[in-house]
């Protein structure tokens, strides 16, 4: 029996193959990296450059404790070579459920393909007693360390370590890119420290315990928190006592992020403090699409609020 090779069928076959495995063919040389936040994606891109194809699961506008568990994340996690996460249980409410069905054992916690960026962070607010009477506490400590730019350097080191661990053949490139990024970050840190001089001693109230690392770095003083306890909305009594405390302490700013502005506005009208909305993760707007621009944006917003206030 003779088999005739029709050119049309041959082209169809090739196209079908291309359609069925576009990722494998087009990005065969690139490492597929999924990150949980946009700043991790940015830093991974800076270190991996053209060797990596990076995508963040969150967009940057979410409150990290309330990210919807979207099944559309599952195929992305399924195909990932590397997963980069903030760790310290920041993603506890959504990531484990997705990993449960993603059928990708190499990116599970503890595996080679899972990069935990919190390794080496000087963790703040580690509770001595982990009990839900203290609210929705994180047993491993405050996970919002990305807001301290010096932590950005540790994040970069961890990502570079993880990439080298998985792809030692590209070690030289990763390390060269890391050095360049750290130098860029160092310059920015020096600039931020000079810029932040007027923030020293400024008294603030925050909605959630997100801003401790940021406040520590730039010398802001935290007077209180709008939430009654972490993750618990304020009670009327709590708001009354907080307003009194703010007046006594002459609090200048109320900082909130991806939360409702109802309570910040209410407190502002009672105390005269200025309200400022900042971003607790990068990527929420074009002005914050890189880690450096994100810290810059938050600092400038705060300075503008202080100047105005």
């Amino acid at each position, binding site marked *: 029996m003779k088999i005739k090779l029709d050119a049309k069928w041959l082209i169809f076959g090739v196209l079908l193959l291309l359609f069925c495995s576009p990722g494998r063919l087009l990005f065969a040389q690139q490492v597929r990296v999924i990150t949980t936040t946009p700043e991790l994606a940015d830093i991974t891109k800076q270190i991996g450059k053209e060797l990596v194809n990076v995508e963040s699961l969150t*967009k940057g*506008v*979410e*409150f990290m404790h*309330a*990210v*919807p*568990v*979207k*099944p*559309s994340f*599952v*195929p992305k996690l*399924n*195909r990932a070579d590397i997963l980069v996460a903030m760790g310290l249980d920041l993603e506890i409410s959504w990531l*484990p*459920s*997705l990993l*449960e*069905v*993603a*059928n990708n*054992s190499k990116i*599970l916690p503890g595996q080679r393909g899972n990069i935990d960026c919190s*390794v*080496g*962070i*000087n*963790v703040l607010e580690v509770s001595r007693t982990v009990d*839900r009477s203290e*609210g*929705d506490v994180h047993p491993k400590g405050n996970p919002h360390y990305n807001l301290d730019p*010096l932590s950005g*350097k*540790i994040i970069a080191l961890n990502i570079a370590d993880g990439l080298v661990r998985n792809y030692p053949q590209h070690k030289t490139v990763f390390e060269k890119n890391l050095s360049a990024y750290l130098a860029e970050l*160092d310059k920015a840190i*020096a600039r931020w420290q000079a810029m932040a001089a007027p923030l020293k001693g400024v008294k603030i109230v925050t909605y959630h315990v997100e801003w401790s690392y940021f406040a520590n770095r730039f010398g802001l003083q935290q007077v209180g928190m709008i939430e009654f306890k972490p*993750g*618990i*909305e304020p009670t009327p009594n709590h708001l009354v006592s907080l307003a009194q405390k703010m007046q006594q302490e002459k609090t200048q700013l109320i900082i909130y992020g*991806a*939360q*409702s502005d109802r309570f910040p506005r209410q407190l502002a009208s009672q105390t005269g403090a200025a309200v400022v909305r900042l971003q607790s993760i990068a990527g*929420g707007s074009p002005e914050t699409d890189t880690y450096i621009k994100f810290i810059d944006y938050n600092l400038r917003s705060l300075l503008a609020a202080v100047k105005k206030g």
Partner: protein
Amino acid sequence: MNLMRRGIFFYAICCAWLLSVPQVSYGQMSEMESLKALVRDIGERLQGALKRIEELEKEKAASAGKIEQLEQDKVASGSRLGQVEKSVRAVQSAPMALNPAIGMVIDATAEHRAKTGGNFNFRTAELGIAASIDPFARAYAFIGAKKDEVELEEATIVTTALPWNLTARAGRLFADFGRLPKYHADSLPFVNFPLSLERIAGGESKSDGVELSYLFPTPFFLRGTVGGYNKIGEENERLDDTKSRAWSRFTYLSRLHSYFDISDDHSIEMGTSMAYTPSIRIPEDPHGGSRTLTGVDLTYRYQPLGSTFHQGLTIGGELFGNSERVGRASGFRRTFAPGGYAYAEAKLSREWAAGFLFDHAPSLSSPGKKTIGYSPFLTWNLSEFNRLRFQYSFLDDKVKEQKTEQGHQFFLQWTTFLGSHAHGFRVR
């Protein structure tokens, strides 16, 4: 350094002044020339000194940067040492660390039904445990203690490292049929399971069996499941699963489940399920007969990414169909009974949500007779782990099988979660 610079500058000015004052006679011109040369020389030396001072200042700044870097490195090293210490402590307390995650749900209601009166209904205290078994599997179990019985709801082994995007589950599990049948009662968006789900699908899809899921390599989420079980459904009495029997007296399931993001904030989730039993037990009918249970589920969600804690809308529903032989006065006949429910729930704030449930539940033996239910409900989430819910239901009942399924009903439900609580991906 500044003081030194000022000193040199002052000295140079003094020298220049002293040397340039016109106190000399014309006869001393040559001496003056040499003095001018001296001044020029001092000026050049001064420029050199200032340049050196600048260089030293730059070096000082660079050293300060290095010192700061070293300090940061020191902090990082200290922190890394702290991590090592923590790891050592974790190893020391390994027997405790290797315990599974444990949690408990307490769910109770105060109820009033027009036909039967009031009741404090302790619905369940459900103990949940979960842990990895080894690098290849994990397991979880839920044990529910109710008013007068303790029941193993689930005890399931799940593979974690099968190739080709496959996952196998076995043991006592909630079969992958529909959407809400896989929920535990404490995780429902309203107080009770819809009557349509209870009558047609038999309530929770509790089963003893094995199932295999496949995640399709598509850019969107698409998952298929096949399974074989003793029977599906908590209330299902059609099969006797206490003894060995022919393989035709088991239930076989297939399901396809998909999800699409319409935009960042809007999504659609859909699924279709079929459970087929080749031969069911029918009292007084030696022929038995097959049973086919079908289901279609559709859920729309509006979850604005920037305010998921405060805003949102879910509109969901399921249609069920049951086809089986049922006994009547005229003999046994194959009957198809369709039914279903639909609900909408709006998140009003971080704490409050309100919704409405519509339920259409036919009688399986006489599908023409049905119970229609209308249930508005209001939920108050005191925190993520503590919830109060009020629900009013009106059931227009033409089936008249049970008094509890008729008329006006009021429920106040209190549900709390202790410790680790996660039903995982299925309950989203």
